[in-house]
């Protein structure tokens, strides 16, 4: 706690510098760089924001209309991810390495689970981590990756390579522009899917 404030300041400062730097770099690179998976992943890493606001809609065969939630996504290198739902209820998943801390206000639950027990969550987390840490090799080891479109408007499709992953996830589809993600859609093998839209106005 003693170091909380200066540390946070430092991190904000560094992020800011990084953002500036990457922006400048991107501006220089535009005309020459060929549009590849490696390029995209590198760009995603560079332009990664400390937190993103999102809105997510879940479509399920059990439901007549999609369910919506809003919240915040955070990524702290190297491996900590947080998905916090803020509306219509408060719930938090903090994924640190293999451990998932699950906190739900409404259900009064706070417990730690293992990612391995939830394979669906695992493949999703893998995709995220690899994308945002610029690890194209790892991404392509786990997923069949297809990149389409232009640097201004791209779609990035991930299909699990292994049967185990396929039984959990049909595909994960990112869309975006430059190093920024616009939507993340996850489709499950039974046809249920969720679509997460990253809200732009939240960038600070």
């Amino acid at each position, binding site marked *: 706690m003693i170091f909380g404030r200066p540390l946070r300041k430092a991190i904000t400062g560094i992020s800011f510098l990084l953002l500036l730097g990457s922006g400048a770099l991107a501006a220089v690179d535009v005309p020459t760089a060929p549009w590849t998976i490696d390029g995209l992943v590198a760009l995603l890493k560079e332009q990664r924001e400390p937190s993103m606001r999102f809105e*997510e809609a*879940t479509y*399920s*065969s*059990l*439901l*007549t*209309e999609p*369910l919506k*939630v809003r919240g915040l996504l955070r990524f702290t290198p190297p491996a900590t991810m947080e*998905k916090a*739902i803020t509306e219509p*209820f408060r*719930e938090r*998943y903090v994924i640190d*390495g*293999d*451990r998932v801390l*699950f906190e*739900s206000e*409404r*259900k009064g639950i706070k*417990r*730690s*689970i*293992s*990612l*391995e*027990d*939830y394979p*669906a*969550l695992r493949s*999703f987390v893998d995709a995220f981590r690899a994308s945002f840490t610029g690890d194209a090799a790892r991404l392509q080891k786990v997923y069949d990756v297809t990149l389409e479109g232009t640097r201004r408007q791209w779609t990035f499709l991930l299909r699990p390579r292994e049967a185990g992953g396929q039984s*959990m996830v049909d595909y994960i589809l990112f869309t975006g522009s430059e190093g920024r993600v616009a939507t993340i859609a996850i489709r*499950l093998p039974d046809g*249920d899917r969720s679509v997460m839209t990253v809200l732009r106005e939240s960038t600070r």
Partner: protein
Amino acid sequence: MSRRFGVMGLWTLAMVCGLWLAATQVSVHSELADLLPEGTTATQRLLLTQVRTGVAGRLMLLAIEGGDPDDLAQASQEFGTRLRATGHFNIIGNGAQALSKQDQELLFRSRYLLSRQVTPEAFSVESLRQSLEQRLDDLRSPLASMIKETIPGDPTGAFLGILKDWAGQEGPAKHRGVWMSEDHTKALLVAETRATGFDADAQATIQQDIRKTFEALPGRSASLRVVMSGPGVFAVEIKQTIEAEIWWLSTAASTLVVLFLYASYRSVTLVLLSVIPLSTGIVAGVLAVNSWFGFIHGITLGFGITLLGIVDDYPIHLFSHLNVRGSAPAVIRAIWPTMRLGVLTTVIGFSSLLLSGFPALAQLGLFAVVGLVTAALVTRYVLSVCVPPAFIPRDVPQKIVPAVAQLTRAKWLVPGAVVLATFMLLWSDTPLWQTDLASLSPVSDARKRLDEQLRQDLGAPDVRDLLVIEGPTAEDVLQRGEAVISQLEQLRTGEMVAGYDLVSSYLPSRRSQQARQQVLPERSVLEHNLQTALSGLPFAPGLFTPFLDAIDAARTQPMIDRDTFKSTAVGMKLGSLLIEQQGQWSAVVPLRGVADRARLAEIVAGWHAPGVAYVDLKEESNLLMTAYRDRTLAIVAWGLLVIAVVLAVGLKSISVLRPVLLPMMSALVVVVALVNAAGESLSLFHVATFLLVIGLGLDYALFLNRPEGTGEERARTLYGLLVCSATTILVFGVLACSAIPVLHAIGLTAAIGSFCCLLFAGMMADEGAHAEA
């Protein structure tokens, strides 16, 4: 001559028969449980059964170490799967899904009888609405795909609740789906063996298979190791220790005795001859114990070698009195009254062990009594005949007589020593009595530490704290269990205990099940409530038909009991938590991480719940041992009294009692002080050895005070006594080096005792008797 060969022939025949019987009939056990008493109260019996066969005794703790967390996790996954396939285990827990598909289906079908959520309000519109909203949350969560399947049949989440109960309270930390120590250096597993923890042979096989399975893991990196702990592992170690110790102790002791006898008398014939009563005594002892108890324990057998130290006194007495004038039969006739009295008093001492009611001591007692009597009789009737007619052991140094006479001038040292010993005892920091039974366990400290560490990592019960719930029927016990669930939960949240395993948390009583069935609504009512609750919620129409069907079915479903889950992992667990013994039913509730035992005992007593009691297994077994110790102590005292009476009658004089009894009793006080000064507290086994010391002391004193004709005879007697006590001290000295605490206790006590007895008897010998002679 012909008589001599006849006797030898008969003896040989008897020995061959005896050895044949011993080889074919005798079964040697090394499970410590076989030495534990039966217990006198129902609770004690239950506890001892628990120790022997209960689930806590069958828990095996395993850890894989020596790799990075990912390697460990992968090895644990594969290891767990392969161990499950060996068939040795009821349950293998490593954090991966504990319940099989079959178990889960059974639990799913029985969910409305098993679930604690089934209450009269559970199916009201409000409750249903709340449940449905929670299911919507579930669908929105990242975990949706895992539980989606159960929603149409179980919108109230009854099944998930049951699974949560079965998963237990928070387990150890996990990495890649398996349990890991907090620092991620060990992958942790818990196994419940089918064989009981004390079944050392079965446990040894299991542990071998575990090692083999581990060696054969595909893709296992060479640096990984597996470590094991738990009662079963201890049992195997104890068995191995006992077997190894018995072997080297007997070898060392017999070699030393043989060498010493040879050095003292320089005669191979004499050494060979002394083997005759010795071997006969041991064979007879083994056969007697085996036919009386049905088996002989390794420790009793180990004690057999201590007989070497006592029994060889008889042939030595015979040999030491042999001289040119008397033939062996004549000599034995002359010393027989003294020897007989010595044998008689020693037998009285040991037979009191038979009365102690403690199997370990009773075996020792029977072994010693039969061995001693046999050896004495063989010395009297066989050995004396077998001695070659012209056989005379070497001359003994005559100087020994004045030396002993000098010793008697130091008579005053004896009371001095007793006073000193008393003061030492009074001022000693070492507690006089050993009350912790665990200190008698031959398990090494390193192993105990490992066990403690693994238990802490795993949050496994430490085989110590139990709640016992008793009742005349299984139903009573289950109801009594249900009655204390909320109190137990309070203890857990109040951090009085870290966790508990109560059968009623898994299996409700019939009464509860019937109550649940009665609150299950009729289909029309439920359908109506559900429709109302659903209004405005985006669930697909008709989605919950499986739910309506399931409630319908549950209303007439047969009751669930232990048998419903027969031969499943769930059934095994129930069977170990709810047991029947002699028509009495008990639930055993292992408690984890008890914070304050005394306080807990008070709290549980304060519940005034019928049939429910908190038991500290360790305390209980210590109490049991203390009770047996006190009883043995009383027996020793009575034995002493009887011996005094027998002596008075045998010696036909009370005045002789003083030089015979006093040295021995003074020696006892000094022995206690010396053992205490060596940093040891007295246990049941030390007390039992007092009897041995008494026997030895009497023997020495009787011979020292025996009226003798000539100075040469006197010298022979004294030399014989020196040899006797030296062999005794040698044998028990070897025993005192044993790593088995029981044998160490016996050895130390007897070695010191033997020395003090001889010294004091020599100092207090009645000079007058010899002066007159």
